[in-house]
């Protein structure tokens, strides 16, 4: 299990954080996703054998935000 920390661009409200969390959690292999609006951060706990960072990136971008 890897605990990865990303910076998120464009997260400008608390409900955006929830959207990002929910989108990322849909990925297989992701155990936990916590987005913090205050810090513009996304913390993801995932199994690197089941999910790739690129997939996480894509999910966040699909929701309309960017990963830095």
């Amino acid at each position: 299990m890897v605990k990865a920390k990303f910076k998120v661009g464009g997260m400008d409200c608390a409900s955006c954080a929830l959207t990002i969390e929910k989108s990322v959690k849909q990925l297989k292999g992701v155990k936990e996703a916590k987005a913090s609006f205050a810090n513009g951060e996304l913390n993801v706990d995932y199994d690197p054998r089941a999910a790739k960072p690129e997939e996480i990136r894509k999910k966040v971008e699909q929701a309309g935000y960017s990963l830095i």
Partner: protein
Amino acid sequence: MKKEFRILGLESTSDAKKAEASLRKLPGASAASVKLDGSASAEFTTTPPSFEKIRDAVIDAGFDAEEKAMAKDAEKEAREKEIRDYWRRFVISLLLSLPLLFLFLEHLKLITVELPELVMTYSALIQFLIATPVMWVNRIIFIRGYRAIVYARSPTMDSLVGIGVGASYIYSVLTTFGFPGALYYEVGSFLLTFIVLGKYLEAVARGRTSEAIKALIGLQPKTATVIRNKREVELPIEQVQVGDIIIVKPGEKIPVDGIVLGGESAVDESMVTGESMPVMKKKGATLIGATINKNGVLTFRATKVGSDTMLAQIIKLVQDAQASKAPIQEIVDKVSAYFVPVVAAVSILAFSYWFFAAGQPFSFALSIFMSVLIIACPCALGLATPTAITAGMGLGAQRGILFKSSKSLQAVQSLNAIVFDKTGTLTKGEPVITDVIPMKGFSERELLIMAASVEKNSEHPIADAIVKGATARKLSLLKVASFKAIEGKGVSAKISGATILVGTSRLLSDHKINGLSAAEKAKVKLENEGKTAVLLSAGGKVAGVIAVADTLKDSTPEAVSALRKKGLRVIMITGDNWRTAKAIGKQAGIEEVLAEVLPQDKEKEVKKLQAKGLKVAMVGDGINDAPALAAADVGIAIGSGTDVAIETGDIVLVKNDLRDVVTAIDLSNFTMRKIKENLFWAFAYNMVGIPVAAGILFPFLGILLDPAIAGAAMALSSVSVTTNASLMRFYKSPMREKIAENAR
């Protein structure tokens, strides 16, 4: 060949080293470097392995890798770009919307406009041509709003705005091209303008609330003067290693944490500890990186570098704490999650009522539909807690008060008792001479010189206090012969042939010294004050009494009385005997004393208080009080100055000043009050706004909320919440305090 990529999941420098080692083991790898921020590179002498192979190796080491090099300062640039982008969108939207202003004002029935016929004829088309680019520059709102519904199945505020504005725009477009209806271009355009302005102001304010952290990061020195191969070389801070010998000249920043080897200087530590007075440092003293060397040259050995330094730890601590969710935030999040769908339902109901039941025109019902969607945006609601918490924790960090999580901030407000460890917390933690009482024929000075000269050979804590006291008074000690320690009683020695005894009454009477009564009387009196007293005789005569005691910190009585004024029960806990404990308690102004408590039982005492229904804070020096700190509702570790005791305590006080306990409690309450204010305003605003927007007042007073006004009000509500949080920086502690200017 060099390959650059990014490593994920690094939490410490040792993680980075582990990942680095896994890269070095790759076939053909000649060098590898991994930094804590995740930026990584590896050099290969042969054709590099495929990225999949590299990733495999990194995963085996417990991390993950992404084939994407990290840009320098990417985060800062992204943030600045975000702010610039909002500003650009705002300006474009505003300029385009301005020609629509007269329509907007007319729409609000504030003016009536007579327009040239040509304009009137093409009015709809002109409006269409103006409004469309406004929609286009702000398309991200529609995209995000739509995607939140489709991909995450949870509508956000963007969804609400998107549906509201989108509906008005589409309706207007249909009207423009022949569908019978009304035009709402100006409403949608102004609404987007206000929303983007709100987001711009919010982004600026959000950047400001984390200024405290930015200031801390900015403190980090860039270079260090290190002795390598007997020569002074200036190295970038990243290359400094533990064990390096470093030289700091007057006026320079101390680059990393370390221990002084030579030199003497005053060091300004205010930026890290909040302590405004410079601290004298000489051989053996610990230095904190990023503090400023004032007047002397110091040579020191680096003990902690990189992410292990105290400053780096403080930064991480504050960042983690700011990111943590307060329990109150979790409730708010839950409410927000239900709030949006409820609002969507209300808007549809309102629309249906006005259109179908009340028989109002479609445009009227649509306008209501939009107003409800817009006014209800839970934006201020979401901002209320995090902005206040970030500001509150920043205020703490400036004062050397570190909150470890938002939870501890919230827990403070329900406290009703506060337990202090005595030694090292209420008191200075080391005994000092408090009284010197000479008998007839001796002077204070003589008494001290004799006692210190003899006690210099002893290792007892009392002896230590006497010697230190004499040294502090600049007394020169005498030569002693035939020193002898008498177990449990004291010591004896000879000075210029005369026998000197220092110890208990028993020691003196054993040596047949007479006329003890006056000295003994003094001793009992001192002991009743909680002091430890020793008798002294010289050449068979009683010479006097010296008392030592662990004295209160100067800040103690003031802090205790401030806490009691706040209505807290103040309790002292100690392993000392009842007499000493009560005496110290009396000086500190504490009536409730728990004495003769074994260190391992402190935790039990805290639990006993909790069993009585009290919410208890425990204040201790963090080393031996760890279990009690953990058991308490709020554990406050104090004076962990050089080695931040991050494991113990929910609140870490960097300075060794009890007044910070009062400030920490006050600051928590202040922050919680701000959160509640923010939440109240955000809620109250929605509670009032939604029914009005739904047209509840229309049948009685003819009042309706125009969608664009709703948009402006909504932008205003989030701006007022963030402003309220940024005003927090004018916070003043109830304790007199002086914050160093550069720590602000």
